[in-house]
């Protein structure tokens, strides 16, 4: 179900933007747009399949925990 939600979110968004904002945009803008959208899409699809991706918080808490004494 989540996969369908993700696809039905991205598809209309891209079609809409392609017909409006992206039409007037330069090559560079389009490339950056495509790369970020692709990264987000892949992450959300993995999330919808319940494939765990390491969270940046793991690294952040480890680094901060080693520098400061934090009681949780």
């Amino acid at each position, binding site marked *: 179900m989540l996969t369908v939600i993700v696809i039905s979110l991205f598809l209309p968004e891209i079609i809409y933007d392609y017909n409006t904002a992206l039409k007037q945009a330069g090559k560079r803008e389009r490339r*950056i747009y495509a790369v970020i959208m692709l990264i987000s899409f892949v992450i959300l699809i993995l999330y919808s399949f319940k494939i765990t991706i390491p969270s940046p918080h793991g690294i*952040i808490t480890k680094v*901060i925990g080693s520098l400061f004494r934090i009681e949780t």
Partner: protein
Amino acid sequence: MKRERVTFNQAMFSIVLFNFGSSVVMGVSTGVGQEAWIPILAATVAAIPLFLIFGRIMQLFPEEDIFGIMNSLFGKTFGKIGIALLTWYAVHLCALVLRDFSEFTQISSMPETPQLPIMILMILTTIYLARSGMRNMGKWSLVMFFFVSLVVIFTFLTAIPQAQVDDLLPIGSHTRAEYFESSFQIFSFPYAETVIFLCLAGSYEKKDSPYKMLFYALFITLIVFVLVFLRNLTLLGPAMMQTSYFPSYVTARIIGVGDFLARIESLISSNFLFAGIVKITACLLAASKGLARLFELEDYRILVLPMGMLAMALSAFLYENTMEMFAFLKYYPYYAFPFQVILPLITWIGCEFYVRKRRKESKLG
């Protein structure tokens, strides 16, 4: 970059609602229970020098945001490192607030609904607002500030008959380290997060004093935080307030006026929604502007949607559960400190040197 103009009131109320953001619902309760008013005041005092720095940067470069300032002060390489760091912080903060919101909605009213649809609804709204520009965010803030304040005042007044004033005592029962830790927590979340508005600077009217704008916002935020704290404490008591994930929401569930007015917790949810929209929109705008500056693009608006999607993707896998989310609050001040204090501090020092050099040159020339 295209310029939009935001009025004094729009900018000020945007900052106020940005500060309310998640704090009004998550409460400003800290590890010191009934004495949280002490860290709230201490954090406000600690925020004054930081806001002076923010104000000074805005005053010295009224037409530029912090990204532009970094670019012209530190050159291409170091400037871009600074821009990349602040852009990351803006995306991350956006993801954090989005996750706070979806966790809150799931816990309070939709336990069976997955968080993703909730996040989608929220992020699409904020993307729309961010694409409409700073000015529209300012207009939204101006209107919503009165609603949010009315809710806080209303819940505070209706809580008075049930309030237990004794809960404010005893005073001085915690160690200095505990007070310091709590103050640091409130200082970084939400006060120092105002650094995001340096990324949006350059849109404020030149005649308006940035100091006035920042300090009025700080003062209003302080008053609301104290009211929220007093309401939550006197109704829930220190122990319950500390153990609740969303003390404001729990407090509102208890409040009842006679037999006819009860269950007003939806008002608290709407507060989170309206203020949260401003916070996420501001972060999205900052992230999009930062990325546009990083890649030297003319218009940031085209990047709002991808950045919104990226923030949503990030927020989906940030934590495994609510407990993890609240545990991260202990680490957050240390993590955010370089973005909130060190980067602006370096930029401010650079600004002062740059302006002095320019003045000397113009005197000689």
